[in-house]
């Protein structure tokens, strides 16, 4: 319930926009919309057919005293119409599910391409799992939208109009009642919905606050136990629950009035039609068959509209899922290329430089890099230190051409890197990120990432150079051990060394290392440090670190602070430590 309300409250404002974007964004969604409307039309026609046939049977038997054989053809037709209506419903449901699967597959394909080809390096790792879950499991939520909400929406537009058109020539009075009450339902829904929206949101906030409080107490249970406060916490939980219940029930008493009004409109509308039809029948101005048909149709007229409200809420999650992916698809990012492009210069021979670079993350007001300039001399080991959050990793992304600066240039040997095909430039570079991704596959597959054609001997050599030989040998299947999803999990230090081995094996002449020894125990850190020394031979290396010991071994130490670079001498380094 909490999740649903959350989606409601969040989705309500942007809902129209999200639907529009989804329909525009996906061809599969457009096709599905057409099919849904067609099936909605068929369903409406079948509803009217069923009503007339049933009324016909009753009138013939009751008024004319017909026998079963006389009405048998009508009953056959009624059965056929029922089966057809079932088929239409089956088609709507199957089509809706199919549509949801298609649309999501479509969005997934584009997501994968956008992330890999246009803007790699834009996602922080912590959102990866959540986004993947949305892209796969979102189909369940999207089914509610495609298989239930959209058809219901189509039916609530089509059925009332068609049924009214049918009733109008047959019974003016009943048609008038329907014509007046039916539009009131959506009108009230909107009016009351607006009034209730804020109340719903507030109710949802309290509900999720209560759940958050429970989570807070459960998460801190060990601390509560250590301080002997568990029974006090249990009591607090109770009091909060009771207070919440009383508050919520007070608002619900009013909130549910809206549902009461809608319900009354539908039931009183039906009752009024019944009475009106009855009076007309008694006065002889209407026949039983027509009157009965109108009566059977009346609830069918109100039902889709009332259902729509419920489906509206149920489908919010699905829209939220689609929205989440569209957000990523629409987010700005990526790198610009100025054509014609030139061959990438080799950073092993000529320096890489940043000049007066400025970079602001979308949605932030302050730039993280503001006039940063630095030069990475070829073949040298340059350390970059600075407080966390200073923009060291951002700077690395710019050097690797995973992002573009807002202003300023990134160049190599005087060539503006915007004139180089990013993929060609990246082939010259290797990156050992803070949290290395281990892909599903063997240890060897993982090390071979940048050079799939490398031999086992070369991989073994790279592992040895990265200081990973020992732990890999201890794995059950050595370098053939499966890692990643469904395979063996590696510790942070082990993953880091696999990533180092990747860098050793690649032909990259520029290597960027991001905090390679962070969170490692002393033994692992020493192994990684030694490996970095070996890696630096013959390569240009940018080492991001906050460890003074590590920085001290570098050829040059630069500090990033307040968005700018300053060179640090030995004394400065000690002061920074």
């Amino acid at each position, binding site marked *: 319930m909490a999740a649903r309300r959350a989606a409601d409250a969040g989705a309500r404002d942007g809902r129209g926009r999200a639907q529009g974007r989804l329909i525009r964004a996906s061809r599969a969604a457009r096709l599905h919309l057409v099919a849904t409307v067609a099936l909605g039309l068929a369903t409406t026609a079948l509803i009217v057919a*069923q009503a007339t046939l049933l009324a016909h049977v009753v009138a013939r*038997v*009751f008024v004319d005293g017909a026998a*079963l054989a006389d009405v048998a053809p009508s009953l056959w037709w009624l059965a056929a*119409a*029922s089966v057809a209506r*079932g*088929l*239409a*419903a*089956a088609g709507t*449901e*199957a*089509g809706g*599910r199919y549509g949801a699967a298609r649309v999501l*597959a479509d969005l*997934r*394909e584009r997501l994968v391409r956008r*992330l*890999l080809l246009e803007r790699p390096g834009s996602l922080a790792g912590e959102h*990866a799992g959540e986004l*993947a*879950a949305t892209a796969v499991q979102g*189909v369940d939520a999207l089914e509610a939208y495609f298989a239930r909400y959209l058809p219901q929406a189509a039916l609530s537009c089509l059925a009332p109009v068609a049924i009214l058109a049918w009733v109008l020539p047959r019974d003016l009075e009943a048609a008038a009642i329907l014509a007046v009450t039916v539009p009131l339902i959506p009108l009230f829904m909107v009016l009351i919905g607006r009034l209730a929206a804020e109340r719903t949101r507030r109710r949802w906030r309290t509900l999720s606050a209560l*759940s958050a*409080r*429970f*989570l*807070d107490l459960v*998460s801190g*249970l060990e*601390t*509560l*136990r*250590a*301080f002997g*406060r568990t029974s006090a916490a*249990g009591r607090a*939980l109770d009091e909060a*629950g009771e207070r919440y*219940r009383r508050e919520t*029930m007070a608002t*619900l008493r009013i909130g549910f*009035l809206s549902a009461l009004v809608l319900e009354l409109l539908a039931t009183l509308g039906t*009752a009024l039609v019944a009475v009106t039809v*009855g009076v007309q*029948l*008694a006065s002889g101005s209407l026949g039983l068959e027509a009157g009965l048909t109108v009566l*059977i149709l009346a609830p069918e007229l109100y039902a889709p509209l009332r259902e729509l409200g419920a489906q509206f809420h149920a489908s919010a999650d699905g829209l939220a899922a689609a929205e989440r992916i569209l957000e990523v698809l629409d987010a700005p990012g990526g790198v610009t290329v100025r054509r014609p492009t030139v061959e990438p210069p080799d950073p092993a021979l000529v320096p890489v430089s940043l000049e007066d670079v400025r970079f602001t993350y979308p949605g932030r007001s302050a730039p993280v890099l503001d006039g940063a300039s630095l030069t990475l001399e070829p073949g040298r080991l340059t350390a970059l230190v600075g407080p966390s959050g200073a923009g060291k990793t951002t700077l690395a*992304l710019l050097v*690797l051409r995973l992002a573009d600066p807002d202003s300023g240039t990134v160049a190599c040997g005087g060539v503006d890197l915007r004139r180089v095909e990013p*993929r060609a430039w*990246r082939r010259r*570079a*290797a990156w050992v990120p803070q949290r290395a991704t281990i892909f599903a596959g063997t240890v060897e597959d993982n090390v071979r990432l*940048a050079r799939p054609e490398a031999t086992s001997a070369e991989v073994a050599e790279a592992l040895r150079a990265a200081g990973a030989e020992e732990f890999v040998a201890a794995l059950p299947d050595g370098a053939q051990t499966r890692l*990643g999803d469904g395979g063996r999990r590696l510790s942070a230090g082990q993953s880091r060394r696999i990533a180092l081995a990747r860098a050793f094996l*690649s032909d990259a002449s520029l290597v960027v290392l991001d905090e390679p020894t962070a969170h490692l*125990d002393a*033994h692992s850190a020493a192994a990684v440090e030694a490996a970095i020394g070996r890696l630096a031979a013959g390569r240009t290396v940018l080492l991001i670190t906050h460890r003074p010991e590590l920085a001290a071994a570098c050829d040059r130490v630069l500090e990033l602070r307040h968005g700018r670079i300053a060179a640090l001498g030995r004394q400065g380094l000690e002061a920074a430590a």
Partner: protein
Amino acid sequence: MSLSRRGSHAPLWRMARATRSRWRLLALSVLLGAGAVLAGVGLLAVSGYLISRAAQRPEILSLGVAIAAVRSLAIARAALRYGERLASHDLAFRTLADLRRRLFARLVPLVPGGLPGVGRADVLSRFVGDVDRLQDLYLRALGPVAVGLLSAAATLLIAFALLPAAAAALAVGLLVAGLVTPLLTRAAARAAGRRQAAARAALTAAIVEVTGGAAEIALAGRERDWIERADRASARLARIQRRDALSGGLATGLATAATGLTAVGVALVAVPAVRGGALAGVLLAAVLLLTLGAFETVRPLPSAGASIDACGAAARRIEDILDRPAPVVDPEQPARPPSAGDLEARGLRFRYDDAGPWLLAGVDMRLAPGKAIALAGPSGCGKSTLAELLVRFRDPVAGAVLLGGIDLRDLPQEELRDAVLLGSQDAYLFDGTIRENLALAKPDASQAELERAARRVGLGPWLAALPDGLDTAVGEQGAQVSGGQRRRIAAARLLLSPARFLIADEPAAHLDPPAAAALHAELAREARAGRGVLLIAHEPYGLERFDEVLELREGRLKARG
């Protein structure tokens, strides 16, 4: 989880039974709900009678009763529904509060020692998510089923009174729509879930790699390989989903067709009955409209079934966690807690599984009031486990921890922990103010005491600069304050407590060396006030003031040389 338990809803029933004290509210809400549904069915049936009667062109006045009935049923339907909504929500909130309290109480003895070691935070947040899911237990699962069954039975009774054969035909139709198709749908969904599970997992893994490792893939120039992999997995899943969509659609179609076909079936028995005189002709429309309306009673059943399954799965996962044995239990005849004496470890041996290597292989230690001991050692060597043994979050496999000469296993846990306080490594800050978090250690602490504790851990200048001072909110899990400040608040909390022995596990993690040294020294100073202090520290900053510096290595304590 064993296979035989997977489909079982026994845990769900146990949880539902636990809230049986609310049966009066439950009965009220079911009666109101069934009344609302029946009023709707009645509205249609009486309308049908009214029209048929009117067609016989009687005096308008003679229709008065039927007209009044139609109107009151219309109003009753809406009013009863309103009442049901209120009653059922009230019930849902009350039962959820009951459940939270009961489950929290059952969880208490399991944390931290009774949960699987890896991803404890994960286990707990899933637990809370599952408890939240049980909100639907009454509102969407049990309530609609009870209302549906009751109103369907009542409708069948009315039909039986009008024409027994019609009731039989209607019963068949309701059974198909209310039971057979939901079961078919459920079976189809389960089969689909099984078929899709592997494909979904493969696709999720591929996309996780892409979302998390896009930069590394791009730098390696392998974009095309991963696109191909993701597309292949996506296409495979879409193929299975297409097939499953068809079976799901057919089940829905069956339920829809059932309504009309049942009307045909009822007509087949009712029409001859009118001719034969068993059914008054004026009631024929009523019987048929009753039939159409009757399907309203079973309409919520399929989704209620799905909710029952979802709640059942949540209940099973909850019980999977709560059914673990508590790692420590209070003694049956507790000893009187000693008011003085040392905290002593004697020959402690501990390992996490029966065949594994010993993490602690004979640890002896004595912590006296007024003494400060520092304990160092590589990560994962068992320092935190030793700390947990000292406050009896776990029991040793062999050896004993004694407080004032009494085995901890003979003491009531609450009072033991009043005397020995563990500030654990992942010291938790609750969503509230700094003051509230500090007050955990000493609810009646004065403003001056709180400020002094904060100053001692180096929070003074920071607090002074905050507009709200101690009343600043720390946010969920302390997210509004930095990692270092979080540590310091936790350390201040420790200093504030009146416990006789303080065990601080890595209180200075994430602090820079000078700050860590200052904090460590402050803890050592606390010992001068007559308490016993055990500091567990990864980094050996500021240990000069400690009476002893020990090292845990290969399961044993050694003086650090």
